[in-house]
């Protein structure tokens, strides 16, 4: 895995948004730190699922990875070519930007608003083919669209091709969006909460379809979700990785099964508690010291989770933990608790927290 060049490589990426609300031009604007110090490589045929709460920066990370959001620091490379350098005038990139753009596709959260309501399914799907496959004639385009519709289980395809978005169900609209992305023959598809808006009974079906197409089209997927069980379903099925984000930082990442069976970061454990299961358990108190996520404008010092963490000590207030790598399992965790020799163990727990192992 390490020998090949990743399709997408993020190194030390940071995305900060300035919230310019003040009328005073001399005032310091607040800065929202949506992503900070993110390193992530996505390889060919790779599936990476990212989970996090709203405001954790997971969408920003996804958009940065597919070149829709320019990072304010660090670099994003597509097969070794910096995406944002490729767009500069006279830069003579090794890989032209138009090819990078085609190779990185996105499926949005809200299927209804991602299709033009005035266009039939056929004309929505024709657009990308017309632009990128100029060698195809009208019959070839038609044949390809119908074959894809049939492939995703929308039959009879002739009937579906004529429909408008309002005549499709949520699941069908999302499938059209998926086809539209796949027609580009992309290397990486960002699926941002792509199944969250669907009914529970349809989610598994949609995820199965994505996995099947991922496999047969040799595409990589970056799957973003707030729901650990959906992320697990996709990542574990594809043998991929699962990453956890908190307030703009990647706090834990590793093979999906390893992260779920053996979560190391206290935040990942909290997410596991919050993930619905069909067990009957008595309602227990949330295992966090604060229910509300802090404001990303002013993230807490040190480890950003220390304000809510059930295991935080004064050390966590002062120092930001790096990602510790467990080489045997390639499991990375940004928490001092995984380090036996850390000074963490000699510091006093914060109020309400315990240092127990």
């Amino acid at each position: 895995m390490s020998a090949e060049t990743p399709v997408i490589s993020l190194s030390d990426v940071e995305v900060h948004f300035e919230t310019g609300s003040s009328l005073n031009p001399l005032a310091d604007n607040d800065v929202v730190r949506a992503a900070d110090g993110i390193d992530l490589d996505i390889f060919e045929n790779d599936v990476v699922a990212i989970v996090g709460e709203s405001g954790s920066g997971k969408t920003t990370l996804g958009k940065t990875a597919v070149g829709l959001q320019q990072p304010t620091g660090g670099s994003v490379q597509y097969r070794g070519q910096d995406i944002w350098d490729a767009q500069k005038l006279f830069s003579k990139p090794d890989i032209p930007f138009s090819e990078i753009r085609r190779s990185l596709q996105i499926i949005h959260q809200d299927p209804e608003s991602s299709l033009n309501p005035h266009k039939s399914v056929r004309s929505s799907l024709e657009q990308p083919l017309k632009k990128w496959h100029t060698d195809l004639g009208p019959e070839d385009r038609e044949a390809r669209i119908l074959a894809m519709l049939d492939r995703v289980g929308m039959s009879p395809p002739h009937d579906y091709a004529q429909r408008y978005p309002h005549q499709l169900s949520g699941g069908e609209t999302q499938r059209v969006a998926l086809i539209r992305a796949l027609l580009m023959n992309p290397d990486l598809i960002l699926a941002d909460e792509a199944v969250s808006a669907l009914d529970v009974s349809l989610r598994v079906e949609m995820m199965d379809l994505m996995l099947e197409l991922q496999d047969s089209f040799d595409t990589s997927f970056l799957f973003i979700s707030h729901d650990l069980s959906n992320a697990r379903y996709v990542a574990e099925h594809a043998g991929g990785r699962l990453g956890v984000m908190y307030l703009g930082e990647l706090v834990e990442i590793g093979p999906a099964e390893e992260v779920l069976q053996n979560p190391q970061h206290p935040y990942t454990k909290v997410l596991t508690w919050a993930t619905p299961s069909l067990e009957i358990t008595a309602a227990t108190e949330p295992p966090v010291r604060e229910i509300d996520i802090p404001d990303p404008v002013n993230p807490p010092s040190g480890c950003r989770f220390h304000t809510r963490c059930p295991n935080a000590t004064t050390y966590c207030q002062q120092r930001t933990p790096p990602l510790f790598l467990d080489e045997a399992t390639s499991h990375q965790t940004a928490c001092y608790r995984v380090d036996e020799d850390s000074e963490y163990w000699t510091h006093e727990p914060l109020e309400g927290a315990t240092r127990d192992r």
Partner: protein
Amino acid sequence: MNTSSDLQAGTPRTAPDPILRIRDLTVRFEMDRGTSRVLDGVNLDIHRNEIIGIVGESGSGKSMLASALLDAVVKPGVTEGTITYSPPDGDDIDILDLSAEDLRQFRWEEISMVFQGALSSFNPTMAIGEHFQETLEAHGYPVGPGMDRAAELLDDLYLDPDRVLSSYPHELSGGMKQRALIALALVLDPEVLVMDEPTAALDLLMQRSIVSLLAELRDKHDLTMVFITHDLPLVTKLADRIGVLYAFEFAEIGKTETILKEPAHPYTRALLNATPNLDAPLEEMRPIAGSAPDPVNVPEGCSYRTRCPLATPDCEHEDPLLEQVTDTHRVACHHWRDAEEIPLTTEVDK
């Protein structure tokens, strides 16, 4: 059609103390292409101090049931049937017969509701505290003690009362607004709290946290709660009983444990199997084939038969009524005795 013993089912015989009795409740909309029945002859008893979860997919009629409980179905919808409310002291009230003024007082003082999309329920130009004041004044309650109660409720919900009451809605996060809204719904000390997808727009962690807090609120304030959701795993953490709605009727009603461990309706079993679950073996999660029926064209007979692996010609001719499986468990299926032919893939450990 319904004998009185049939109606009592789903209730432990020892403590039949329903606070709300819903009988033959139908909500219909007249449309150009026919009559759309979004609730079709629903019967349900809601017991005092219980938390009942109503589970259904989108378009199963679950939100209509919530609106009908407050006689708040939007025009031109027509609500028929009876909903009898038994206050702790005093005479029974038929909610659907109340005059406009009586209804205005009844809502919020006896039954209050937290709506779906609650994040837009606050007026953006008013501070949260003003919402509480306005509610107290509109119902003629003393504002001083009322605001003390508001502060206590906010504190119970892990919110800082002073900060929240003086904030404007945009200054609070989604989870804080949602909790403030639950406090607002409880400020007049109602008997029943109806919640329609109260946590759907929130993060899982916040959802789970709110559910834990709701259980505490029920015990502290002797509330009866109706929790309407599409999220079966979430409601199992909270509800004493669960009713499963399919195509505008109850498919099955029973104790939470029964619904999870011995579901008797093929739809409930399929729904459990389709639920993403961290513990379930991956290969065994299955989608439900087919799609839910259109409210204008509900199939003859059993509405689930087109998707049901157990369906026989009988199901086509005769609409199954809710049959009694045990004292506390009712199911609307001709073949519930054979339901185990659909294996449950979710191992539910207690």
